[in-house]
């Protein structure tokens, strides 16, 4: 890169971590007596459920460690920013980045902070890192951006379980770690190609540390409004952009696959008055691959667009580079449509992370085991001063069965979380 040319930036390396336990979502719906006659249309299969000794830090660190281990000491020394994107924070002041930074043994001369805007947080974090690099203030610098979220709302009381009912089947857990730099092997950002749409709306919120409330219809309408208008803002900025032709693949925020399908249909009708058969074919071809991981871990909030991106990169033919359009929506609300390019080299690098194999190894929970976890008797609640975690709660799920080192929560001492490698 020389002065006067535009730097190339984006995602150098990425990994997805989907936890230790999974639950069959159809079995959950049946158990809850949810009448979902067209369950298949919702495009949900499994969701990750967090164990008491898993928290947003363990998810984040377990996602990031393979990326950090692969770096030379010189490259590791260039990580100058750790951005955690989450709506599952553990403290009002101290960011999760401080723990992540410590357990990954990252250099001390960096910026550590946390970003919140519901499921939009991940896109916001990536754009902060991208714009840090594009600013040119620290040439060759790198940023670690980690999305990490889990859902443990229902343990507050019976009322909370009731409020949560509308999203319980889709609420998952997972983290995505991304190294953002000027050597974007995995996803090269289209510089300046983005569009936003945002307004105040009370569609979904987390009014307390263990509760979530929301209105499915309002959230769906806000998502559809944002999808249309964020794309239109993108098209206003990017000369010649055409939703149908510009992007080989698309990744939309995925609370569950059915939502993505609805938004795609809305856009295709609104922009092109497309007919059902064309919409169906286009969805299967350009959006189908993006559901590969989301439908196995559930909604991962800020991480869902990156799980979608990982699914596309891992599963499609990339003998030719492809442009991917990404739409992120976070309740409340803020949204963004942006794009970038993926190719064969990034595919080889991402496949080395063996994301699907790790998801296959998760322990399959029975409904009884899930409900035991949901009661939350051994969960460390927000604001706990001291605690010792029971690692024998579900012996079959203990990460000794995994093939890489795993971070687990061990205890809380004077509000400080203590973790250990297994």
């Amino acid at each position, binding site marked *: 890169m020389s002065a006067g040319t535009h730097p190339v930036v984006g995602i150098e390396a990425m990994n997805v971590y989907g936890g230790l336990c999974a639950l069959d979502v159809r079995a959950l719906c049946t158990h809850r007596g949810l009448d979902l*006659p067209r369950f298949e249309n919702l495009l949900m299969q499994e969701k990750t459920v967090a164990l008491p000794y898993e928290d947003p830090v363990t998810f984040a660190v377990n996602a990031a460690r393979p990326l950090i281990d692969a770096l030379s000491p010189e490259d590791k020394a260039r990580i100058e920013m750790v951005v955690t994107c989450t709506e599952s924070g553990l403290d009002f002041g101290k960011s999760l980045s401080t723990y992540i930074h410590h357990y990954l043994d990252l250099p001390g001369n960096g910026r550590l902070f946390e970003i919140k805007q519901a499921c939009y947080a991940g896109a916001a974090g990536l754009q902060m890192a991208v714009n840090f690099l594009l600013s040119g203030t620290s040439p060759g610098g790198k940023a670690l951006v980690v999305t990490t979220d889990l859902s443990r709302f229902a343990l507050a009381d019976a009322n909370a379980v009731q409020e949560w009912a509308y999203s319980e089947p889709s609420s998952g857990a997972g983290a995505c770690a991304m190294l953002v730099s000027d050597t974007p092997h995995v996803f090269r950002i289209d510089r300046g190609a983005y569009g936003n749409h945002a307004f105040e*709306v009370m569609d979904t919120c987390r009014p307390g540390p263990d509760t979530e409330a929301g209105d499915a219809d309002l959230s769906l*309408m*806000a998502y*559809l409004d944002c999808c249309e208008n964020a794309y239109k803002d993108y098209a206003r900025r990017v000369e010649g952009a055409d939703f149908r032709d510009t992007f080989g693949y698309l990744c939309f925020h995925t609370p569950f696959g059915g939502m993505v399908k609805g938004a795609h249909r809305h856009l295709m*009708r609104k922009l092109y008055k497309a007919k059902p058969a064309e919409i169906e074919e286009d969805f299967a071809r350009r959006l189908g691959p993006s559901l590969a991981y989301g439908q196995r871990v559930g909604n991962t909030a800020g991480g869902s667009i990156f799980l979608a991106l990982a699914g596309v990169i891992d599963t499609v033919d990339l003998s030719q580079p492809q442009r991917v359009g990404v739409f992120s929506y976070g309740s409340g609300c803020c949204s963004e449509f942006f794009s970038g390019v993926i190719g064969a080299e990034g595919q080889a690098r991402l496949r080395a992370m063996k994301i699907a194999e790790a998801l296959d190894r998760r322990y399959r929970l029975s409904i009884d085991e899930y409900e035991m976890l949901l009661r939350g008797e051994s969960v460390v609640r927000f604001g706990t001063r001291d605690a010792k975690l029971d690692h024998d709660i579900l012996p079959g799920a203990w990460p000794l069965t995994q093939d890489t080192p795993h971070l687990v929560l061990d205890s809380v001492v004077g509000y400080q979380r203590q973790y250990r490698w297994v």
Partner: protein
Amino acid sequence: MRVMDSDDIVEIIVRHIRDVVPELADHPIGRDDAMADLGVDSIERGEIVVATLEDLGLDIPLVQLHGPRNIGELADLLHDKRAA
């Protein structure tokens, strides 16, 4: 030509409900019914509202259509938006 009233809009909504959820083709549906009670899921409700807006030639933010508790109230709201 007669001006479209709220009942005409109910008819359009019901037609789209039957279109999106073929299982309801022969099911009686009226103003007092709520789509959720008929077994129409949230994605399908969104699709029905979008299709109805298209028919009415209305281009407004969807979040403005939040609140009605049944098909009749939705039709009344759409009727008002059309007149506005």
